[in-house]
């Protein structure tokens, strides 16, 4: 686990960067909510920001969205400082808030039409409803929708302005597994439309499923940035072979699991009882990174 690979070297703050952050600091009183954060997100990329509550995820994202001021650092979102972003800049970003877009007496279609009227070059509201799978709810009022449908409506409101960059703050919290899978396919179809996305989530499987790269934030700092499969040097970590022998559960780390299993098979002359070969899951490496007590520190 020592061999933390820094897979992607920081990009230059060039035209390819949708988001570029250097030395971001945000203080609440004498507490550093964000304590010197550097990050680049490329155009067209889906980037997932992972981290426990209070790690600085939402604060960071809200600085990028222009909701919060910062105390130090240089931040560029679509080439502009979000603290000075005007209507023109706002028309190029879409925001799906954790809290959603609020209650309304308007129908889904009316809400989308109103929202589209704020943007210079919006998508067709009817097409957006189809894209998020709410076409048959066009005439339904926002408050009559289920939780999952409301979240889709929030996304519809976030994308109707045809943003170059979409922020998604914990978009699937409270979803059942079926709703979450449907939501994921919606996000994938948005990627095909070329939208850059910054996603914050609690769900590791969500990050693994959707993101091109994952950043883990803890204590206001970015602990690591990597593609999901390589986070925490996961792909290089030794495999663990476990089996049952003489009624005792045994396990052994090995760099050569195939040879190890072949040898085991010879020893048992046939099926190895309860054989399993595992590598650290994203959750294992994640918990270790954010400083949660690992179950088996020296595996």
């Amino acid at each position, binding site marked *: 686990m020592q061999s933390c690979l820094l897979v992607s070297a920081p990009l230059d703050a060039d035209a390819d960067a949708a988001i570029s952050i250097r030395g971001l600091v945000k203080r609440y009183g004498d507490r550093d909510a964000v304590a010197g954060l550097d990050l680049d997100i490329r155009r067209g990329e889906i980037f997932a920001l992972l981290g426990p509550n209070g790690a600085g995820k939402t604060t960071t994202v809200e600085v990028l969205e222009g909701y919060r001021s910062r105390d130090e650092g240089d931040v560029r979102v679509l080439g502009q400082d979000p603290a000075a972003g005007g209507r*023109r800049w706002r028309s190029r970003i879409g925001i799906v808030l954790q809290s*959603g877009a*609020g209650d309304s007496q308007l129908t889904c279609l009316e809400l989308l039409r*109103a*929202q589209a009227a704020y943007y210079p070059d919006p998508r067709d509201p009817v097409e957006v409803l189809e894209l998020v799978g709410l076409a048959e709810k066009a005439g339904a009022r926002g408050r009559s929708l289920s939780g999952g449908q409301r979240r889709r409506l929030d996304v519809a409101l976030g994308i109707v302005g045809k943003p170059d960059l979409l922020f998604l703050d914990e978009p699937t919290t409270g979803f059942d597994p079926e709703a979450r899978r449907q939501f994921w396919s919606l996000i994938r179809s948005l990627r095909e439309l070329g939208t850059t996305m910054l996603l914050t989530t609690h769900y590791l499987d969500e990050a693994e499923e959707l993101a091109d790269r994952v950043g883990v934030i803890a204590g206001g700092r970015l602990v690591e940035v990597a593609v999901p499969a390589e986070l925490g040097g996961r792909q290089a970590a030794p495999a663990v072979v476990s089996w049952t022998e003489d009624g005792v559960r045994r396990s052994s780390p090995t760099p050569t699991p195939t040879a190890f299993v072949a040898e085991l098979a010879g020893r048992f002359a046939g099926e190895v009882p309860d054989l399993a070969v595992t590598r650290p899951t994203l959750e294992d490496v994640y918990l270790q990174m954010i400083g949660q007590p690992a179950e088996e520190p020296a595996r």
Partner: protein
Amino acid sequence: MSAPSSLPSLPRVFRVRAGVELKEFFRQRESVVFTLMFPVILLVVFGAVLDYEIGGGVSFTQYFMAGVIAAGILGASLQNMAIGIATERSDGTLKHLAGTPMPKAAYFIGKVVQVLAVTVATIAILLVVGKVLYGIDLPSGTQWLTFAWVALLGSAACTLLGIAVSSLPKNGRSASAMVTPFALVLQFISGVFFRFDQIPEWMQTVAAVFPLKWMAQGLRSVFLPDALAAQEPAGSWELGRVALVLAAWVVVGLLLCVRTFRWRDRADG
């Protein structure tokens, strides 16, 4: 990237927001019943129960007409704005809007259109019901002019005050719990339900701080014969002072709004 197309024009966004605000109000049963119909119910009930003469051959209902219209304006503006905006702040509507390229002014334009529409509807219904059920004498000639400026100035002051007050409560529900009793007490001491000259003097003094008393007084000059001006504590309608106090509240309300308005919930940092 394609060539940047121009941002939608302000009038267009203003129109869209006005449409949104009108739908939000008139489609919500609670707001229609409590804000729009409540003064009408008051007029119907009080007109039937308090059937006496206040002097000079004028019925109490004629007197109450001025008060209930003032209360209706208060409900459509101060109460409606305080509760409505507090709700939109706590449920995330405001934060969402602040994240769009909607010009901020458009939100307030939408609210003003909503207040005006509700106020005009309330007054129209009250006048019709008062005329049909209780034979109220409607204003005539220049009285309409007084009616218009008192209603407009009062509603501007109360709208701004309502927007400012919306920042105090934690959410929509506590806004309602806070504003509704306040408005009710204000109505009791401002000469809406009782003759203002019969209210204890110290209560008159308290009421004189707030706009409702002055709206009711200005509207009494519209609905009552000039002979009854002698019944006022000041002995006259004091229209100049009505205009002055309401205008002062417009200024104070505007300053409070500018200083206190927040697009996000306090719990949200």
